[in-house]
C-alpha cells in the first residue's frame, strides 16, 4: 500500500502543471451551452492541445497512440486538469472513454489505425447509440435492427439519450442482427457515420431544461460490414469489455470537482450563518468523508486495474458516487435555504442533472443486482 508519489511521478505532475499554467490562458472563451458546433470546436481544440503536448490517451497503450502511463500518472492527470480548471472531455467523452477503448481492445489493426488517431487528435467526435425507448435498464432487449445485404448492414430503429449526436462524426451503435436469438445474443457492434443518409437527430430536453441529449432515428441506414467490431452477434461481449472498465475512472474528475464544490458549499454556509447549525456542519463533514473515500476507491481500482476483472469495483463506486453526488447538491440546497429555489444558481442546475446519476448507465437497482450476483455470487433471480 503506497499512496506516495515517486520522484518520476512528481516530475510528471510538475511538468503537467507548468504546461496547464501556460496553455489555459490561451484558450478561447468557453462557448454557450446551447451552441453545439461551438462546443465541438472548443472541446476538439483542447483535445488537440493535449495531443500535441503528449497528454492524449494518457493511459492508452503506446501501440494504439496513447502515452502508456501507469495508474499514478493517470490519476495525477485527472486531478491536475480538474484542479487547474481545464476544460472537460466534453464532446470527446464517448471517443476517449468508451468507443476508443472498445476499438483498442476489440478492433483489427486496420480499424485501430482508422479510428483511434482521429479521436486522440480531436478530429473526430463519437456518440453512443445504445439506449432505446423500450430498452432502458434492459439494454439487451434493444430492437434497432440490422439486416445484412452483401457487404452492408441496413439499419432501422431509434436510439435515445445520445449525447453530442448533433455534432458527432461517428456513432458506436448496438443493433440486433439475429431477431430470433434471446437477450444478449444476436447483438452486433457497428461504427455508423452520422452523415449517412437516413440518420435524423432530434434534441431531447431534460428536466433540467437543457438539451444535453438527443434521440436518433435510423431509417434504412447503410453501414458497411467493415465497420463491424468483433464477430456478428458478438456485440454484447464486445461492449461489456469496456462498459465495466468505464466505470472505474470516468468519474475521477467529477469526484475532484465534487470535493471543490463541497468546499464552496462550506464557504457559503460560513458566510450565510448556516455553518452555526451542527446539523449542516456534520452533514457536510460526512460528505467530505464520502468523497475522500471515493477518491481512495478510485486509487484502489486503478491500482488493481491490471489484475484482471476490470471495473468490477466500478459498480460499487457508481452506486456510492451517484448517491453521494445527489446528497451533495441536496446539502447545497439546504445551505442556500430559500435561495435554492433560484434556477439561476449553478448548484440548482447541478442538483437537477445529478438526478440522472442513479438512473443512467444502469439504475442503482440494476447496479445492486450486478454487485450481488457478480461480486457476491448470489443466485440470479428467476
Amino acid at each position: 500500500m503506497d499512496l506516495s508519489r515517486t520522484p518520476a511521478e512528481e516530475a510528471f505532475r510538475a511538468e503537467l502543471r507548468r504546461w496547464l499554467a501556460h496553455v489555459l490562458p490561451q484558450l478561447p472563451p468557453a462557448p454557450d451551452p446551447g451552441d453545439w458546433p461551438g462546443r465541438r470546436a472548443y472541446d476538439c481544440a483542447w483535445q488537440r492541445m493535449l495531443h500535441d503536448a503528449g497528454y492524449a490517451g494518457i493511459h492508452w497503450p503506446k501501440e494504439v497512440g496513447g502515452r502508456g502511463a501507469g495508474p499514478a500518472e493517470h490519476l495525477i492527470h485527472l486531478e491536475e486538469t480538474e484542479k487547474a480548471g481545464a476544460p472537460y472531455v466534453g464532446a470527446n467523452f464517448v471517443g476517449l472513454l468508451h468507443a476508443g477503448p472498445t476499438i483498442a481492445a476489440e478492433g483489427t489493426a486496420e480499424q485501430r489505425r482508422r479510428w483511434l488517431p482521429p479521436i486522440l487528435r480531436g478530429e473526430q467526435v463519437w456518440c453512443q447509440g445504445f439506449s432505446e425507448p423500450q430498452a432502458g435498464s434492459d439494454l439487451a432487449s434493444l430492437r434497432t435492427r440490422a439486416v445484412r445485404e452483401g457487404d452492408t448492414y441496413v439499419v432501422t430503429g431509434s436510439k435515445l439519450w445520445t449525447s453530442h449526436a448533433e455534432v458527432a462524426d461517428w456513432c458506436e451503435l448496438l443493433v440486433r442482427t439475429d431477431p430470433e436469438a434471446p437477450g444478449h445474443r444476436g447483438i452486433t457492434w457497428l461504427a455508423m457515420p452520422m452523415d449517412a443518409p437516413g440518420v435524423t437527430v432530434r434534441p431531447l430536453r431534460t428536466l433540467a431544461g437543457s438539451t444535453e441529449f438527443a434521440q436518433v432515428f435510423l431509417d434504412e441506414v447503410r453501414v458497411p460490414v467493415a465497420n463491424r467490431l468483433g464477430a456478428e452477434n458478438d456485440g454484447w461481449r464486445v461492449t461489456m469489455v469496456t462498459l465495466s472498465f468505464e466505470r472505474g475512472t470516468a468519474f475521477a474528475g467529477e469526484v475532484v470537482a465534487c470535493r471543490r464544490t463541497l468546499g464552496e458549499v462550506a464557504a457559503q454556509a460560513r458566510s450565510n450563518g448556516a455553518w452555526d447549525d451542527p446539523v449542516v456542519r456534520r452533514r457536510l463533514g460526512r460528505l467530505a468523508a464520502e468523497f475522500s473515500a471515493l477518491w481512495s476507491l478510485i486509487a484502489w481500482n486503478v491500482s488493481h486495474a491490471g489484475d484482471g476483472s476490470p471495473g468490477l469495483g466500478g459498480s460499487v463506486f457508481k452506486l456510492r458516487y451517484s448517491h453521494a453526488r445527489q446528497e451533495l447538491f441536496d446539502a447545497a440546497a439546504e445551505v442556500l435555504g430559500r435561495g435554492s429555489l433560484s434556477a439561476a444558481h449553478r448548484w440548482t442546475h447541478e442538483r437537477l442533472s445529478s438526478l440522472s446519476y442513479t438512473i443512467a448507465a444502469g439504475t442503482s437497482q440494476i447496479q445492486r443486482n450486478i454487485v450481488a450476483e457478480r461480486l457476491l455470487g448470489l443466485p440470479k433471480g428467476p
Partner: protein
Amino acid sequence: MDFRLTEEQQALRAGARELLAGRFGRERLRAAVEAKDLDRGLWAELAGAGMFSMRLAEPEGGAGLGLPEAVLVFEEAGRALLPGPLVATHLAAGLLDEAVVAVVDTTRRPLLAEHLADAQAVLVLDGKRVRRADPAAFDPVPEPCLDPLTPLYRVRGGPHTMESLAVLDTDVRTLRRQGALLTAALQLGIALRTLESAVAHAREREQFGRPIGSFQAVKHLCADMLGRAEVARVAVYAASVTGDAVDTATAKLLADEAAVRNARDCLQVHGGTGFTWEADVHLFLKRAWVHATQYADAAANEETLAAALRR
C-alpha cells in the same frame, strides 16, 4: 371520535377533484408550464367555487366550513399541481378584498417571494405582526425559479419599508400555522399523485420481459411511498381537526418529506422516461421543493416538536 371523512367531506373532495380534472387537466398543466401567467379565468372559477372564502361565515360570503374541509380541497389542488398563490389568497380571505394575494415572509433570508407580479396585494409576515402591502412596495425583481410554475421574485425590504405598512388585525401565529397546514395539504396531494403515477408506470412498463412492478426493488420503493403518504395523510387530517401548533409541525414535517421523497422515488421508478421535460414527474418534485421551504421548513418543525417534548 370517528376519524372517517363525513359524507359531506367526501362529496367536497370529490367535487374539488372533478372541478380540477375538468379545468386543469394535463393539457392545461403543460400549457401553464409554457404560459407563465396566472390563468385569471380559472382563478375566478376557483374563487367562485369557494376555494378561498370557504372558511368564512355565510353572511361574510363564505361557506362556514373548517380547516378539515379546506385541507381536503388543498389536497386536491396539490394533486392537480394547480399553480398560483393559493394558500396566501385563502389566508387573506376576510382580511383583504383583493382577488389574488401573495405572501412575503420577512423572517427568511434570502428574501424571495412567490407570485408577486400576479398579486394585487401582499400579506407581510414577520415574527410578530401581519401587515398589508402593495406588491410594488418591495421593488420586486424576477428571479428564475426552478419550478416553472412558480414565478419568483427577489424583493427588497428593510425595517423602514415594513414599519410604514398597515398592520392587520389578526394573529400572525395562527396565520402561519394555517399557512403551514394548507401547504402540507398541497404536499400530501403531491405525495399521493406521485405514488399513483409510479404505480401506474410500474404496472405498464416492461423490462426483462416483465412489468417492472413485479420486481421487488420497484415494489419496495412503491410500498415505502405508500407508507409516507398514509402517515402524512393522517398527520395532516389530525392537525386540521385539532388546529394545534405541534400537530401542525408534525403534519408539515411528514408531508414535506412524503412529497419530496415520493416525487424523487417516482422519478426513479420512471427511469429515463421520467427524466425528460415532457414527462410531468419533475414538475411535482420541483413544486415539492418549493413548498418545503414555505412557512416552516424541516429544521423549524423538528425544533417545534422537540421543544414540546416534556415541556
